[in-house]
């Protein structure tokens, strides 16, 4: 299988309150269609790593490439366009735009991309909402949905442009067991059936043990890479 993401000796400093090396040279590859979990104690640098991989944080040393394209050193606007087309995000806090309907929240990144007409985008958005079983709430305002429902809408939003990689920062961190399981099942399905790559940072060991591979981090370094039993 093809390598979709390659991190090469990533080093990251925090300058505040004093200079501190958070990541001390992290290297690993991710294969297409892989469901990867990054685990570790709080402060080990796993979230920091994820934000570098997500291209939102550009202040690091080392090199990172996705889909064979070197992303290190690109401008913010280029990276925004890249994210728009190739990456999807799910965060711990659901972060939907509260003024908009669930449907509109899902549609926005696709409208920004401008690859499809408005009608097509709407149709695709409904299809994605169906995938996360949220289609009946499509026209509800985001602020009126429960936490689990919002998280599923956020996943639909992450999927709208058929990204190569979906990244999650504690996607189940704020959810109860039932909702966590739903999110997990959706991720699993995406990886197996759509061959989309999933990279999540998580504390939830049940969640991590269900994934294809686990990267365990400690003190800014990769401690262990293993396949769960």
């Amino acid at each position, binding site marked *: 299988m093809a390598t979709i993401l390659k991190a090469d000796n990533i080093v990251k400093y925090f300058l505040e309150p004093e200079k501190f090396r958070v990541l001390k040279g992290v290297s690993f590859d991710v294969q297409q269609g892989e469901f990867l979990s990054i685990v570790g104690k709080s402060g080990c640098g796993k979230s920091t790593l994820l934000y570098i991989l997500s291209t939102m*944080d550009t202040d690091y040393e080392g090199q990172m490439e996705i889909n064979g394209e070197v992303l290190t050193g690109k401008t913010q606007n280029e990276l*925004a366009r890249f994210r728009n087309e190739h990456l999807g995000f799910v965060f711990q806090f659901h972060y939907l735009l509260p*003024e908009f309907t669930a449907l509109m929240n899902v549609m*926005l*990144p696709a*409208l*920004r991309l401008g690859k499809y007409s408005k009608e097509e985008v709407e149709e695709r958005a409904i299809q994605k909402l169906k995938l996360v079983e949220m289609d009946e709430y499509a026209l509800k305002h985001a602020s009126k949905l429960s936490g689990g429902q919002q998280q599923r809408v956020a996943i639909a939003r992450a999927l709208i442009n058929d990204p190569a990689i979906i990244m999650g920062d504690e996607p189940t961190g704020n959810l109860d067991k039932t909702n966590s399981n739903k999110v997990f099942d959706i991720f699993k399905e995406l990886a197996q059936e759509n061959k989309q790559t999933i990279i999540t940072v998580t504390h939830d060991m049940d969640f991590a043990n269900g994934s294809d591979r686990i990267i365990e981090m400690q003190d800014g370094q990769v401690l262990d890479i293993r396949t769960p039993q």
Partner: protein
Amino acid sequence: MNWKLSFRIALTHLVTKKKQSIIAMMGVTFGISMFIIMISFMTGVNQFLEDITMDNTPHVRIYKPIEIEDRKIISEAKAEGADDWHIVQHQKPKNDMPRIKNGLQLMGKVENMPEVLGVAPQVATQVFYNNGPVQIPGTINGIDIRKQVALFALDKKMDMGSLDDLLKGGDLIVMGRGLAEKMGVTTGDRVSVTTPEGNNLTLKVAGIFSYGVAAMDESRSYATLATVQKILQKDPSYITDLNVKLKDVNGAKAFKAKLENQIEDVYIEDWETANASIRAGDSIRSVLTLVVCLTLLTVAGFGIYNIMNMNIINKMKDIAILKATGFQGGDITAIFLIQSLMIGVLGGALGLIIGFFFSYLLSKAPFPAAAFFRIETFPVNFKLIHYMIGLLFGFCTTLIAGYFPSKRASKIDPVQIIRG
């Protein structure tokens, strides 16, 4: 950049925060409507004052002043050497007449100039109006009635009688309202006048006029050229003033300079110099209007700036999410700038409507003026250009006030927000 999408997001933001948007809009509305009311009224007042002055003020006046000659006769009789001094004390003018040489020919010449709308000839003389034993000083102006009506709209100033009556015979005058009241005369009465040469004459009052300017109404009468020439015992070519109206009011200074090069032996005065105080009043009022309006708009601008700043602080999470899902800095700037501009354009348009409404009310409100003031309601000007400037001002103010917060929003680092 995707303007349509940015517009849609901006619109949703505005509509969901209706109260806040309306308050921001009201700042602009208030500023623009005050601007419209102030500028309409101020220019209306300027226009009104200019009208009452300009109605009877020639744009350029040509006349012959009586001057003391610099040349001394004695120096002609005896050549002046280096050591000789001729001192003449208390020199007096010659018995010269204030007539314009070849006045009627000069009139024809000036009338044919391209800048000129028309020229009205005039014979002005000082007289005493005899009211029993009391003498009231004043003037009688001999005029060409048809030209005076065409250029100075004298017929519009008539309270009683008609200017045409002057043509019905000799020795007829129309008298200023204030003067007629002092004399206790009315149409059909006779008044006795004394000319500077000492001749006594009896003239019949054919009408009463009033300009609304006391200085004129209390001292002036009009008669035909022939009547005044007869009073003065002069020939029909005796003209003391040529009152010129130009096609362009503001060209008076330039025209005066041109005339001075072409004709000699007369004095030329343009209206701007003659009415310097009115011009100064005009410009002071204009500056005042501008300052007040700019202040109002600046205050409105700061209001928008504050509201947009707060708006952006409230929307930090949304901005982070938009950026994370691929919106670029420019998209974010556009979203907030569009909100600001919508506030500006809507608030401005509403301001224009409200401003127009109140200007209209003002223009219909009765003006508490003295009876002889020829005005019934507040003077208000309605000019499209003021409304266009108002809208442009509103647009620019909100553009500037919205730009800085929007630029700030585009620089927000999504990682910081999302990580908490």
